[in-house]
């Protein structure tokens, strides 16, 4: 599987996370290759978001190593860390748009901070990114609170893409979106990967997303990686947790099947 993608971009080795007595991760190994879309799935509380936060260097694991772009993150100096952050983009679960700024200004924040581009150029590039994620140009002049949830997700994605990151992290990108919007967002992510060569790590709850977007799925459960592989392969897994996850999921009608009376 990995052969068709590039070199490893994210490597997690022997990762252990403990919050007090609670063991969230118990020796997890995970590799993401360049150009790949990896989905991390798992039940609520299985440590998906925690893993993401650790890869983003927002949280320090109890033990284990994380390598980004081939280097151990523990050895990074402050300046290198900043350079690293420029190469990554994050779409947070609750969009995390700065509420005092317009969408256009939000998207412009990383550009203003990390490049010497003139204000006018920054605004143009930001407007281009806003168009890229499928928002109307008028949305750029609005405050995040004036947008719907789906539009805010898109705006947050535009901000995450502002600096053309090589590595994009998406924390539940489709949660809270209606099915057509979720599908569009997935297609957008795949399209961006195809045209920009992004590497994408997404945490998701949405089985449809796995079929539409993910090249590979890593499933967390009981603090370990209980399954890993392309979604059709994973679906045939014998592991009870994986079976439980896919039990109500059939391609295309996941949401309907989960709720329809038997």
């Amino acid at each position, binding site marked *: 599987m990995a052969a068709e*993608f*590039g*070199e490893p971009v994210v490597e997690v080795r022997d990762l252990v996370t403990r919050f007090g007595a609670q063991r969230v991760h118990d020796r997890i190994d995970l590799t993401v290759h*360049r*150009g790949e879309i990896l989905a991390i799935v798992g039940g609520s509380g299985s440590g998906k978001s925690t893993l993401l936060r650790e890869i983003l260097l927002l949280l320090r694991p109890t033990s284990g190593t994380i390598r980004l772009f081939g280097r151990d993150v523990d050895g990074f100096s402050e300046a290198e860390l900043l*350079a690293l952050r*420029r*190469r990554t983009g994050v779409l947070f679960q609750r969009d995390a748009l*700065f*509420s*005092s700024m*317009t969408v*256009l200004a939000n998207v412009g924040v990383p*550009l203003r901070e*990390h*490049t*010497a*581009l*003139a204000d006018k*150029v920054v*605004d*143009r*590039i*930001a*407007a*281009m*990114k*806003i*168009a*890229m994620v499928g928002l109307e*140009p*008028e949305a*750029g*002049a609005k*405050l*995040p*609170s*004036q947008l719907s949830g789906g539009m805010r997700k898109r705006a947050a994605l535009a901000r995450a*893409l502002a*600096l*053309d990151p*090589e590595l994009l992290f998406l924390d539940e990108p489709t949660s809270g979106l209606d099915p057509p919007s979720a599908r569009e967002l997935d297609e957008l992510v795949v399209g961006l990967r195809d*045209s*920009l*060569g992004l590497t994408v790590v997404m945490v998701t709850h949405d089985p449809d997303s796995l079929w539409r977007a993910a090249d590979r799925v890593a499933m967390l459960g009981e603090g370990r990686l209980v399954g890993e592989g392309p979604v059709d392969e994973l679906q045939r897994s014998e592991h009870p947790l994986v079976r439980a996850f896919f039990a109500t999921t059939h391609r295309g009608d996941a949401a309907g099947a989960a709720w329809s009376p038997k």
Partner: protein
Amino acid sequence: MNRPRETLGTKGNAQGGGAPDVRLVPGRDAVECVGDWTVDRLAGLQGRLDALPWPSAQEIVVDGSGVRAMDTAGAFFLCRTVGGLEKRGIRVSVQGLRPELERLLALIRNPALSGAEPVPVPRPGYLERIGRETWARVEEGVGLLAFVGEIFLTLTRWLRHPARIRGRIFLHEVQMAGSNALPIIGLLSFLLGVVIAYQGGAQLQYYGANIFIADLVGFAMLRELAPLMTAIIVAGRTGSAFTAQIGTMQVNEEIDALRTMGLAPMDVLVVPRLLALILTLPLLTVYADAMGVFGGMVMAKLQLGIGFGVFLTRFESAVTLPSYLLGIVKAPVFAGIVAVVGCYQGFRVSGGTDSVGRQTTMSVVQSIFLIIVVDAAFSVVFSWLGV
């Protein structure tokens, strides 16, 4: 350049050389693009694009074979340049780009992307802004009146149905606003007493009227400073907390959640806080009175050599009960101001989290403003009444 083919541009390792540039190709109607067309290196490019003496031919070739890396921002620059030329009736063909860069360019060439222009935030004119501001003030005033009315309705309902009273929340607020504020109020009142005695003492000593320090500290603290200081501290400490708590709940849709569960925000959030403050602020004022006078006593002893006993004897005969009560009477009024303004501003939070900060500032400023205005009004009324 041994970079993997999947990468369109590896940022950060492109030091030295490779700055994006455009040059004329001598002898041909062609320009050549070279270097890294990536967002972090584009800063000077616009100027060079503008300054380039473009060939005046009908057909121009843009040679991209010298482009080492390109990202969406670089492709955007190229597209806009090409678009500008095409608008002048010149045919442009872009050649020589690596296939993956070609794909990227095709993506950005979509007129929706390459033609994207920022939409300016609509700025209302002067007259409109004055109108809006005025209307906002009027609306806020009317809203505050309605809010006070609603509080009274809730209170009358509580009187008829005492079972609705939220005792637990009330007590919690008493603890938060009252006993937790004791250290800060005690310390500040003590220091205030010290300062007044120190400043006044120097003057009194000059006239040989040392003993009147008790009158000075007593009247100043009991009538004016202790109630005022306490109210201002509580406005900053508790009023701001009311606004921030209620405001955050508003942003989080917790207020809506309360309503849908049949809990009136007035019952749960506002009236318990108001009553708690009306109870605690007079108590805190009494405490501040004592601490302030104590501060004055300590200073009188250190500076003027007046013992505690002498001070208290003079204090008793000089400061009458009405003076003390006039100070205390103001406290519940101040409490009402702090609680009502604090809660009201909390409910006015709308939209995002920055609104919480704005309304909290507004709440503290308005509370303190109103407290001082009302205190002045009290002084006028008391002087009319001759007390």
